């Protein structure tokens, strides 16, 4: 079930709970599915040197990110028997407590959905040229780095 078209994953601003709920609801007609796995990344209010993170501002090399994501998507569909996979990542400002990443995989039985979801998140963080700038409450900033 590979998808040939390069899909956009970027959303301006936070990913809303309503968007996520709607995305779940859309699967009720896909009755071959028996298990969904969802990962949501939320902006954490980290404390660094006595200052608290207020938001993360995301930027990306969009074209390269989408191409990379396409390759990852193809590889994951090849590896796991999935019915579908949806990925959304924020660009721009996302405040603490808001959702910045939404990965949603579905399969007939739960295990492929769970493994695929986890692998997509790992690969996305390591391989997609996306950058998060942590904005503190006093409007200073520092650039985040994935370990």
């Amino acid at each position: 079930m590979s998808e040939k078209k390069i899909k956009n994953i970027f959303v301006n601003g936070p990913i809303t709970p309503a968007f996520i709920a709607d995305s779940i609801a859309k699967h009720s007609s896909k009755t071959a599915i028996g298990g969904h796995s969802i990962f949501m990344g939320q902006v954490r209010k980290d404390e660094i040197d006595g200052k608290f993170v207020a938001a993360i501002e995301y930027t990306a090399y969009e074209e390269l990110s989408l191409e990379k994501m396409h390759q990852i998507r193809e590889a994951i569909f090849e590896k796991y028997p999935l019915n579908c996979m949806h990925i959304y990542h924020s660009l721009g400002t996302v405040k603490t407590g808001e959702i910045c990443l939404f990965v949603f995989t579905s399969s007939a039985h739960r295990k492929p959905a769970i493994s695929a979801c986890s692998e997509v998140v790992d690969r996305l963080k390591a391989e997609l040229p996306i950058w998060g700038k942590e904005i503190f409450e006093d409007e200073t900033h520092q650039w985040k780095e994935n370990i």
Partner: protein
Amino acid sequence: MEIEIISFGKISELISNQKIDFDGIADTDNFKLHLEHQFPALKSMKYKLALNKNIVQENTQIINKATIAIMPPFSGG
């Protein structure tokens, strides 16, 4: 030879997007030397290059009108 430079993340605060006329820069190793000479702060930073949207894994020849992206470590998600 004209090269378009685009930079991201922390490096975008150091190097702005620009078109430059380079002579005698034939490959990406050479480009890095030139870049680090012009922006010494880069020497102590981790970064990767993408030449025409391909991440540079090994020294690669640069042709005219290339776009080179300078990318610090990724931090998506």
